[in-house]
């Protein structure tokens, strides 16, 4: 026993390192278990007060600038809305004539960002809406400009959003007007890459990227970004497109969670 104690004393430093590494790996490999997910979101929920002063400060610092941008956007959207309203009525009438299936409409739940996390290039953020607001796992999340991620875990009053900037995030998108479908992944800053696009497709710089009809969780036609460059791979029948996100990931403060509503 005393020999064991001497050995332990001699190697105490290494034992403590191995023990800490072992526990850390145990946590890493159990990240997807319900216990870890629940304890993570609950602890974040409990300590969310820590982030409140910084969020308040952030909002105050950029309030005037935000108001200015929102006012000009509001004016632009109001004008656009007048024109679209006329087209919408016309469209609904034609769809009824042709007996098309009714489309889903969506509710948008506004949410404030509680925390952007302490790791470089945010991969997930915490918002102040949770199960009480009927926010569910896999609900799409948007800013006023476009898609930025989806809900990955929820607690009573908060939820974690996996952002597009998470290297494991994939999104099925289409490039209009040609309706070419591909898979989007983030590559850095506000730039994403769309792969698996047919080589024969006619894509131009400036084309708009929307969510496709193939996604299970994302409704079709939500804005994502616009094409900035196109690459041809000689050894492949596919082409790769780079696009810039409409949403600025570094200045996210208010978001909208998309919930399925009634039919239109």
């Amino acid at each position, binding site marked *: 026993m005393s020999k064991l104690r001497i050995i332990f004393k001699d190697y*105490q*430093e290494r*034992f*403590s*390192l191995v023990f*800490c*590494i072992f*526990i*850390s*790996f*145990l*946590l*890493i490999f159990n*990240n997807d278990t319900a216990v*870890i997910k629940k*304890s*993570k979101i609950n*602890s*974040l929920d409990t*300590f969310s007060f*820590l*982030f409140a002063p*910084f*969020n308040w*400060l*952030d909002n105050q*610092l950029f309030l005037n600038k935000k108001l200015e941008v929102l006012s000009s956007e509001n004016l632009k959207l109001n004008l656009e809305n007048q024109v679209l309203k006329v087209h919408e009525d016309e469209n609904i009438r034609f769809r009824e004539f042709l007996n098309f299936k009714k489309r889903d409409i969506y509710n948008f739940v506004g949410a404030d960002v509680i*925390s*952007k*996390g*302490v*790791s*470089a*290039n*945010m*991969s*997930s*953020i*915490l918002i102040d809406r949770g199960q009480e607001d009927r926010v569910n796992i896999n609900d799409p999340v948007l800013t006023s400009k476009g898609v930025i991620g989806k809900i990955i875990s929820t607690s009573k009053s908060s939820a974690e959003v996996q952002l597009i*900037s998470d*290297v*494991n995030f994939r999104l099925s998108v289409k490039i209009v007007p040609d309706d070419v479908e591909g898979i989007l992944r983030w*590559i*850095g*800053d506000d730039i994403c890459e769309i792969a698996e696009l047919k080589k024969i497709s006619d894509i131009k710089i400036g084309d708009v990227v929307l969510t496709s009809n193939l996604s299970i969780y994302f409704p079709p036609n939500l804005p994502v970004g616009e094409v900035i460059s196109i690459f041809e791979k000689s050894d492949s029948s596919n082409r790769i497109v780079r696009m810039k996100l409409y949403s600025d*990931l*570094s200045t996210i403060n208010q978001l909208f969670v998309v919930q399925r509503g009634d039919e239109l």
Partner: protein
Amino acid sequence: MSFYLKLFPFAVVLQLLFSELLTFDGYQANIMLLYVILSSMPSDNNTSQSTVNGFLVGLFTDFVLFSGVYIGVSSLVFSICGFWASKVSHNFAFRNFDLYWIAFVHLGTVIYSLFRYDYFFFNDFLLFLSNCFFVTYFTCFVGFILIKIFSLKEAILNA
């Protein structure tokens, strides 16, 4: 020991300040990593204690400060950095203070990036390197300023 406990809330506030308000092109300085490295400075601290301290600070970062990566990554990185940082002899750290902490910021950030940018590591190594590079040097830049402003070198070596 009490010196480092006093510094802990300060490190947390700074980390929140940098992550919520002072990001640079999406990159954030890892203040908690700096805290673990500097608090493991060889003095009367023993290595086991530094390792466990690093582990606990890592758990705090993952669970409370919301690291946004896998739970357990911060505790892994911080316990390794705490262990190796406390292994450096006091004389070496005294003579090469800046080299000492900058080397460990590199070590910590590379391990961190292996988990954060694992996909890039296997598919686009240049992108992995550029992300790793920005995080490391932003952290070093902020660390350098903090050490100069608050005269941390003297405070730590005399603690």
